[in-house]
């Protein structure tokens, strides 16, 4: 009985922490005004935010006696795919010149996103 109650408390605590982080992510998205800085808040804070919500889900499933570990997969897939979408948004920003032009690389010619034919450069 007490274990179930402790579990419930842990679930609620995880939910509060998770939603708190997601709230901070949303605030960051609204507050910053440059496309590159706006990219930071949601992609980052989201990982721990959603991680805590999924943790709450796992603990709750054990709490009610129907163990489930699907959430681990969601977490794994999220951690693999989140950087890729962030990378694509960053690439679009660079391509559209929506942000400061990055310094050129020391060794190679240019950044691969900037390496496009003249007529394709977005204006």
């Amino acid at each position: 009985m007490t274990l179930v109650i402790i579990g419930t408390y842990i679930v609620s605590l995880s939910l509060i922490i998770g939603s708190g982080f997601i709230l901070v992510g949303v605030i960051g998205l609204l507050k910053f005004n440059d496309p590159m800085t706006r990219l930071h808040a949601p992609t980052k804070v989201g990982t721990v935010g959603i991680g805590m919500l999924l943790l709450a889900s796992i603990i709750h499933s054990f709490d009610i006696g129907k163990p489930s570990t699907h959430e681990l997969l969601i977490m794994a897939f999220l951690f693999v795919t989140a950087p890729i979408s962030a990378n694509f948004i960053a690439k679009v920003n660079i391509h559209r010149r929506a942000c400061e032009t990055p310094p050129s690389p020391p060794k190679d010619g240019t950044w691969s996103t900037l390496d496009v034919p003249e007529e394709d450069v977005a204006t």
Partner: protein
Amino acid sequence: MARAFHWLVPHPLLTVILTFVWMLLQNELSAGMVVFGLILGIIIPWGTSIWWPDTPRGFRPAKMIGYSLVVIWDIIIANIQVAWIVLTVPTAKLKPAWIVVPLKLREPEAITMLAGTITLTPGTVSADLSDEGHSLLVHVLHTDDPDGVRDDIETRYEARLLEIFT
């Protein structure tokens, strides 16, 4: 024998991971599920192997566990830092910066992993790769010391990845 094994299981680690993912998806532990997971784990890498012919040489899974723990710890710590920056630093005082990380890693898998790690650890997003693949472009949300962030990435993540992919 070894060649037949390699033909059947071109990526042994992937087979193990796929079996494990299948069992997690099914949410049950039974012999039938393990066997079906193994069948999937053999068929999927075999069917898709023409798209990735190069197996990363010398991959050390044991060091990977230590690396994952370091990354998870960094994600939690840095999340709190970014939350603090978002809530307290006014937009006008924010100091975003581009930093260029010279890459010692050469294998595409290792570079992908480094880029993913940089994006997951808050405060930094890996934005682009140079056209020959010798440097990585990273955007930092708020820093007073861009060179310090670069050195941090090199010593903390790249050095460990160099040990994992040797």
